[in-house]
């Protein structure tokens, strides 16, 4: 079995979600990685230490802030040269956009947002959530052709880098054709906290916060434990938080290690975005709030009293 991992990187670092892909049970597979962009050769070392046997470098300034179109074109040219069985990418903003393009261009099978992937001998198995996490299903691949699979971030832990390992390195030259799409600008969100889709802990506030200013108690607590700040739609609609923080059916779908819902009722559309979180904590004045049915730990109480105490307790624990 021959697998290719599409490596995402920013500021000379591999993304966390890319590192995690090496933690999947890939059996005895021969693992290749491809990395495209500018000055990418520095990533060959880390990729080898994570478990890549061979690293392919597509050195191309045009791909450094590439669009899905240009990356798809580059990888679409390169992948057929490798006689692969599986292409793995993170189900990140980039991976989500790219993988279906590749699958269509290469006439491959596609399974996105998987939460279990394993390779054993020549068998590939994958499982993914369906109906917003109300169920999961196994993806049966109906033939032996190429499979393109994206994996939900935080599905597995990245392996410890093995300093003794290294990968062989090859340079790849691709020819980019005229592009129909062009990236004009990237407007940075100025968000210093982790994004909800990438965080391992999320502290979410709801309508009951009552104002944008009051969210500072949620932010303080989030900062004390290195968490992202999430929001219910009601709090977004009320203008307390930007849309990027919204969790739920019409917001982001997240599955962090810990999800702490503060003054969030637990409407079904909210649950659709966070149901698959590993541990769920609810803080709510109403003991009958639906969120408690999904929560593992609950505090029945006023968030304005409890949350500042949590910040205190977390800081004390950190010894600061």
């Amino acid at each position, binding site marked *: 079995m021959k697998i290719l991992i599409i490596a995402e990187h920013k500021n000379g670092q591999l993304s966390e979600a890319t590192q995690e892909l090496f933690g999947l049970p890939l059996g005895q597979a021969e693992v290749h990685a491809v990395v495209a962009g500018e000055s990418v050769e520095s990533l060959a070392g880390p990729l080898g230490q994570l478990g890549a046997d061979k690293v392919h470098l597509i050195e191309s300034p045009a791909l450094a802030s590439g669009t899905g179109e240009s990356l798809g074109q580059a990888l679409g040219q390169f992948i057929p040269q490798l006689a692969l069985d599986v292409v793995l990418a993170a189900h990140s*903003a980039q991976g989500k956009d790219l993988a279906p393009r590749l699958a269509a261009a290469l006439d491959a099978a596609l399974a996105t*947002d998987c939460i279990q992937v394993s390779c054993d001998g020549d068998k590939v198995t994958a499982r993914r959530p369906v109906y*917003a996490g109300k169920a999961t299903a196994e993806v049966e691949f*109906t033939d032996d052709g190429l499979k393109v699979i994206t994996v939900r971030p935080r599905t597995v832990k990245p392996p410890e880098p093995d300093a003794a390992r290294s990968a062989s390195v090859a340079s790849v030259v691709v020819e980019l054709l005229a592009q129909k799409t062009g990236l004009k600008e990237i407007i940075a969100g100025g*968000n210093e906290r982790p994004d909800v889709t990438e965080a391992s802990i999320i502290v979410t506030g709801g309508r009951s916060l009552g104002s944008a200013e009051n969210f500072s108690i949620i932010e303080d607590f989030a900062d004390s434990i290195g968490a992202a700040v999430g929001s219910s739609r009601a709090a977004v609609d009320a203008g307390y938080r930007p849309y990027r923080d919204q969790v739920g059916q019409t917001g982001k779908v997240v599955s962090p290690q810990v999800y702490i819902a503060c003054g969030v009722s637990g409407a079904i559309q909210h649950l*659709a975005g966070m149901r698959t979180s590993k541990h769920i904590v609810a803080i709510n004045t109403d003991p009958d709030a639906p969120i408690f049915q999904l929560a*593992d730990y609950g505090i029945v109480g006023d968030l304005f009293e*409890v949350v500042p105490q949590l910040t205190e*307790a977390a800081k004390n624990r950190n010894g600061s």
Partner: protein
Amino acid sequence: MNIFACIKQVPDTTTRIKLRGDGNGIDEADIQWIISPHDELAIEEALRLREQRPDSTVTVLSAGPERVTDSLRMALAMGADSAVRLDLPGDADSGMSARALAAAIGKLGEADIVFTGKEAIDDGAAAVGQALAVSLGMPCVTVVNGIDYGDGAITCRRDVGGGNVEIIETSLPAVVAAQVGLNEPRYATALNIIRAKKKPIDTLSADELGVTEANRKTRLKNFELPPPKQPCQIIEGTPADQAKELIRVLAEGIQAI
């Protein structure tokens, strides 16, 4: 302009999911079907564009069994000019759906722009828009929450996570996948819902679209419901005690901090 919107019919979020006896799908008996929420944005954007550009038509497409006709009627009630059902099984994979949609668009005239949702809330695959674009040889911009329409080109704002926004320009024809924020979908009025009941809905067969089971590459099976939740452990005490205990659980119990 020749404007298309692709819509998928999905179970309403509030529907309780029950598995079929063989575990290879869900029991569709009591399901309330709706247009996938992001696809309503796709319809809305198509209608708004038509309002800006005289001599435009909006065609809505949905691939699926007979039941999807209801969702197509809802799109007509919102204001679409015509609606076509592509006769595919409800469990077609994204490759089959994309292929059928591309073939239908090819048959129905030269598209100037095709709107889809960013993802359907049943499979959450976020795949069909991009695959469709590849089949049509068109560029595709995903998770779009704002569009400036120019001449033969559009400029899209897309949400790339972390609050970062990309501004992407693309030539037309193109496929655009809609994200929340793009617009506020209108409601169909009761009168228009009644009127739409009488409108014709054309069907294209899988044969006409050149899609067969041989095009299937994946099938979902062995569905599982999440294991029943343990009852919530309520942490008692004063707010200070509750806080200390929760932080202890996070740090020592589940070692998350």
